[in-house]
């Protein structure tokens, strides 16, 4: 696979996280775009590529948004793949810029959160979920992931205390990231273990809070970024694979296992070189699965790995092994802003690598691994993607 030489990722923007909002998705996407333009110091007309992801555009689409927002892109992409949409948009956009199909691509994920909209999304998610999973208790994603979590716990002996390690360290990170919706609250092991049961082993703090918000970044050439004097990060390697291991009766691994070795080889770095890891944390078991499949530990050893690993951004935890994980708190503490949640890992890694994270900045961050997962069509998440990013100075 050809590399992504000469591509710069700039101007990570996270905007407007709020639990419920009267604004629609177009407001969050457009506002994020405005912040991107301001941050880059360019004119709106200089954006000639537009990649957008959203669940709540309703009858609108990426093309309707061009008229809403007054854009005239010569390259357009709509990546509605939930938890991988940020990485997918980044990959597509990087190729477009590399091939000269666009000069500056704005990648934006944004969703509104109208009253009762989560219920409507869950009830109408896919034809297979309408026919064969929603009628069974109507638990939405909690129900599907409770079966995956229960199975994982029985097969590998993971406990709720192990999942708590992920949630607690993420909350500590969120306590240092102002936009996180739950960042003003601390979370203790007792709070976690005594939380309200939701579905089987899944309790309140294993669930993300649906919310509204926007996430975005710009992709351009390194030359252009230097010319605009914008700090940037580079894309060393990226991969995706969907509906992998489809014969596994219950999901406990996914597409990463097929490409992760190749991904590290192309990036020229390995898991031990990562300054931070951002996984898609819709449920802690899924983060654990990613740590295994991304080569941080062997399959089934995720529980032991998180017990022995300090996942705080500032290495302040007691465990000896350090791996800052979901350094802004992830969705578990920031809230899940629909498709924007699939961009959160990318924007947070960019902030860390270009040094614009504030209170949650990792000192001397060099390499970051972002992983995406998503779209429970029926009984499992189908999509996987992963990308290795590096700071520009390396």
């Amino acid at each position, binding site marked *: 696979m050809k590399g992504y030489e000469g591509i710069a990722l700039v101007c990570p923007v996270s905007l407007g996280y709020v639990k419920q909002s009267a604004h629609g998705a177009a407001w969050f996407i457009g506002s994020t775009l405005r912040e991107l333009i301001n941050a880059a110091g360019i004119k709106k007309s200089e954006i000639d590529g537009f990649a957008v992801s959203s669940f709540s555009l309703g009858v609108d689409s990426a093309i309707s948004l061009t008229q809403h927002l007054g854009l005239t892109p010569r390259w357009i992409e709509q990546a509605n793949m939930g938890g991988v949409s940020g990485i997918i948009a980044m990959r597509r956009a990087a190729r477009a810029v590399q091939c000269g199909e666009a000069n500056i691509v704005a990648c934006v994920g944004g969703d509104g959160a109208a009253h009762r909209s*989560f*219920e409507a999304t*869950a*009830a*109408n998610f896919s*034809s*297979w979920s*309408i*026919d*064969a*999973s*929603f*009628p*069974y*208790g*109507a*638990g*939405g994603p*909690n*129900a599907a992931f*409770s*079966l*995956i979590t*229960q*199975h994982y716990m*029985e097969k590998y002996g993971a406990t709720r205390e192990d999942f708590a390690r992920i949630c607690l360290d993420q909350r500590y990170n969120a306590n240092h990231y102002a936009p996180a919706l739950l960042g003003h609250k601390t979370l203790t092991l007792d709070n976690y273990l005594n939380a*309200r*049961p*939701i*579905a*089987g*082993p*899944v309790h309140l703090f294993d669930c993300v809070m649906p919310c509204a918000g926007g996430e975005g970044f710009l992709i351009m050439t390194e030359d252009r970024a230097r010319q605009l004097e914008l700090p940037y990060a580079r894309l060393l390697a990226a991969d995706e694979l969907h509906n992998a291991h489809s014969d596994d*009766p*219950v999901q406990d691994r996914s597409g990463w296992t097929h490409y992760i070795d190749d991904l590290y080889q192309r990036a020229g770095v390995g898991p031990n070189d990562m300054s931070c890891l951002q996984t898609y944390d819709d449920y802690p078991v899924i983060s654990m699965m990613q740590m295994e499949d991304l080569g941080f530990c062997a399959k089934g050893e995720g529980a032991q790995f998180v017990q022995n690993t300090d996942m705080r951004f500032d290495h302040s935890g007691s465990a000896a092994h350090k791996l800052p994980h979901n350094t802004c708190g992830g969705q578990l503490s920031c809230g899940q802003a629909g498709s924007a949640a699939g961009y959160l890992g990318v924007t947070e890694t960019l902030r860390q690598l270009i040094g614009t994270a504030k209170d949650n900045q990792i000192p001397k961050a060099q390499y970051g691994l972002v992983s995406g997962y998503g779209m429970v069509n*029926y*009984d499992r998440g189908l999509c996987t993607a992963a990308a290795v990013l590096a700071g520009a100075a390396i």
Partner: protein
Amino acid sequence: MNLGEKMRRRLKLNRPSLRARARPPKQRSPVGRQFSVVNLPVSLALQHCRSCAHVQYPPTELCSICLDDALTYRETSGRGVLLARSALHHSLWEFFKRRLRSAPWLIGSVKLDVGPVVIVHIGCDTIKAGDPVQVFSHTDVSQEVVLVAAPSALDLTGSAARLNIISSLGLDQPALRKGGI
């Protein structure tokens, strides 16, 4: 309250929680509706591919292995193994919210001997992950077909035995609210 007044109040207060009778989700895709119709007279019917013999679930229009559209519903054994089970304490749907007030709602996933993995209501709380089970279909009070797992030793040959399980789950009755609209 006559019907007209009732409908006007329902429109004005369009909230599932205010309904006198809450029912399970009625929505199905066109193939899902076909699945319901075909399963009415039998214990369990699944799509079989005439081209490659693959057994398909959830129902679709094309075989997911060979992409042929030669899918035929055939009466199928519901024997399988319970992969995982989970007790729901929270639901997005008013019917289940009301049922959850008395006890958590049990669901599970079953790997059928004929191939597919099916999500089911658990018809008897003694069955655990790893147990052999039998899956049957039945209409709920929304007149749509749902799948239910029962212990494999249970004799389910008569429709009365199957109705018994549906009744014990409360799936054959709407969940009521006193003074609802």
